[in-house]
């Protein structure tokens, strides 16, 4: 009847194809940030610049860029300028691996940094081990990376989930109570963090009332919160991160749950607290690094340097992760006067970071045996508003050294196999 001039009919197959494409859209990488130069020393960095971890990933990249600028100003690595090539993993394992391979095979990077997402970090570690590239996992926390799946070439700057749990579990138990209910992100990081927390809780004599496994990128937590409340715990432990943490904590406060149950967790980040309205900045947590450390060498300068490139905002732990990861390569390569990955990896065992890189009071070193950085945990409480600075959103009560929170190497399951 109609000529369909105005209305070319859309069939159901087209619509379903469209829906499938939308699914792909959620995982696809929209753009690539790349910095190219002529210098031969190249650091590759793979991080999820899009998706739920975009904010922390962006900050890790910013920290690494600052490190590269500083090392180039001091002559680079072995007298050669350094360039940083950044790729977006789009928070997808397949994409992350593909980008890592591209950086190694096509761009010929000497070193690799990444990823925020534990699952992607672990997958990239397989690639870097295969290609014999020295790799520092900047922000993926799951235990296995420096545990049962550890590798000779892989080192890690951020805490393990076990270290995070060990740093704060005792405080939460003593302060808030013994019945815990968990909201856990349903992937590697969440699972190991949950295991670590429940192990600690068991040792302390507490019990778990339930665990809500939530898909990464969940927007509405109300159904999980209803279930958690019905279980009547003493503490609601939030293990989610990034925008999941923001969405969850915001709903917790809107529901007034924090007035009925204590709300806390392990890892908290300044990116999340800054994104929350003041009333939702609550709870006891651990930070992996904090910008306000009066009297600690180098911190003031680092804060000032980051402010210059971060719209005047202070650095977060993620800036420090990126900065420390990149600086480690420069420090060890200049010390050993080589870029050979095997020699550098061996030299990094028990390598202690200098004051102007560690930026915290305790001794910080890459532990021999599992390659985990013994970095501190900053345990304290979220503040709705900063007293002297609007970004001072966390009150640090205690800085616990890494070798106090980390389990012994023999307990990690790590058995480093060196190339023959």
């Amino acid at each position, binding site marked *: *009847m*109609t*000529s*369909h*001039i*105005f*209305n*070319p*009919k*859309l*069939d*159901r197959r*087209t*619509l*379903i*194809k*469209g*829906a499938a*494409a*939308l699914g792909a*859209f*959620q995982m696809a990488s*929209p*753009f690539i940030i790349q910095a190219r130069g002529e210098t031969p020393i190249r650091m590759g960095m793979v991080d999820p*610049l*899009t998706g*739920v971890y*975009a*904010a922390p990933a*962006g900050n890790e990249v910013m920290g690494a860029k600052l490190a590269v600028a500083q090392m180039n100003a001091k002559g680079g690595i072995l007298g050669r300028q350094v360039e940083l090539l950044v790729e977006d993993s789009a928070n997808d394992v397949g994409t992350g691996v593909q980008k890592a391979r591209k950086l190694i095979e096509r761009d010929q990077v000497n070193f690799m940094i990444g990823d925020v997402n534990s699952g992607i970090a672990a997958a990239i570690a397989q690639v870097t081990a295969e290609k014999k590239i020295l790799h520092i996992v900047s922000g993926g926390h799951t235990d296995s990376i420096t545990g049962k799946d550890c590798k000779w070439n892989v080192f890690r700057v951020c805490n393990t989930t076990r270290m995070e749990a060990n740093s704060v579990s005792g405080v939460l138990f003593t302060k808030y109570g013994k019945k815990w209910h968990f909201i856990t992100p349903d992937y590697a990081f969440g699972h190991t963090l949950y295991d670590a927390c429940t192990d600690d809780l068991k040792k302390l004599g507490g019990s778990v009332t339930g665990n809500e*496994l*939530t*898909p990464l990128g*969940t*927007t*509405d937590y*109300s*159904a*999980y*919160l*209803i*279930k958690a409340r*019905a279980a009547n715990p003493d503490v609601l432990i939030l293990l989610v991160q990034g*925008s999941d943490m*923001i*969405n969850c904590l*915001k*709903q917790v*406060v*809107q*529901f*007034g749950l924090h007035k009925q149950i204590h709300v806390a967790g392990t890892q908290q980040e300044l990116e*999340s607290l*800054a*994104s*929350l*309205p*003041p*009333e939702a900045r609550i709870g006891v947590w651990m930070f992996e690094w904090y910008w306000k450390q009066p009297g600690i060498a180098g911190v003031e300068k680092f804060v000032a340097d980051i402010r210059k490139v971060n*719209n005047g905002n202070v650095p977060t732990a993620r800036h420090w992760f990126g900065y420390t990861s990149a600086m480690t390569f420069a420090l060890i390569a200049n010390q050993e006067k080589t870029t050979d990955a095997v020699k550098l990896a061996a030299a990094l065992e028990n390598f202690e970071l200098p004051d102007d890189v560690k930026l915290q009071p305790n001794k910080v070193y890459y532990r021999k045996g599992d390659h985990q950085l013994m970095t501190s945990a900053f345990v304290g409480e979220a503040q709705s508003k900063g007293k002297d600075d609007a970004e001072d959103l966390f009150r640090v009560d205690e800085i616990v050294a890494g070798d106090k929170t980390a389990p012994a190497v023999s307990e990690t399951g790590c058995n480093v196999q060196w190339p023959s």
Partner: protein
Amino acid sequence: MWQLLLFNVTNGLIIGAFYVLMALGLSLILNLSNVINFAHGGFLVIGGYIAYTITPYIGFWGALLLAPPLTAIIGLAVERVLIRPLYGRDPLYSLLLTFGLAFMIEDGTRFIFGPQGKPVTIPAFLAQPLSNELFFITGYRLFMVAVVVIAVALLFLLLRYTRLGIRIRAGTLDLDTVAALGINVQMLRSLNFAVGIFLAGLSGVLAAGQLGLEPTMGTGLLMPSFIAIIVGGIGSLPGTLAGGLLIGVASGLTAVFFPAASEAVIYVMMAVVLLLRPRGLFGEEGMMS
């Protein structure tokens, strides 16, 4: 257990109401113009960020009134410049265009506002739960449902009793004949698109008050809206309404028994509906064939 189920059904209806708002906008555009608007989540984000930007000057209520029409104006411009030239072509063209547009909006928002989320504060009296028992029913969530009910009612009145609405409905059934009767079809499509984007903008303002406002916010909300349309029936606005509520309740109930599958369940529902009743629960047979 019964209380838990009842709570989750109620909660699911509240979540579903929000999906309805998104899905109705999508459905309007799809029904009249055959455009699968992948950028709908992007327009939601634009609405949220406009509200965030103007709230310090005109307050939450002013932003609620102003951000949706401003988003609709942006939508109108996009329709005029980018989408209109593709109307005569295969629908895949506009699908690909809006697919790319969604990326551009997300990255553009990230470029302007940064990747870090923005805190949006809602009026204090709305940020309170009804009671300790009914803690999940907050003033803001009730307000959201009220806004959705009003928006849906106004939309149905518009479509039923106004000349524009009658033309949109007629165009949905047979646009060529509507054009033959002398009606400016291009204008009709533009206005219809603007109404759809207005609803996306309104969703954005409401979502920003409850969720974290960030560039990726729209992506997670878009898929349930598409599924609401498919489950409810393509071409049927009441079907979209039912589909949105249904997937909200299904998601809420699944969270009680199998939390990890609370998102997957809506995709399962879509698959089941497509297998057993491909036109959707309320869709007309042959509507999209």
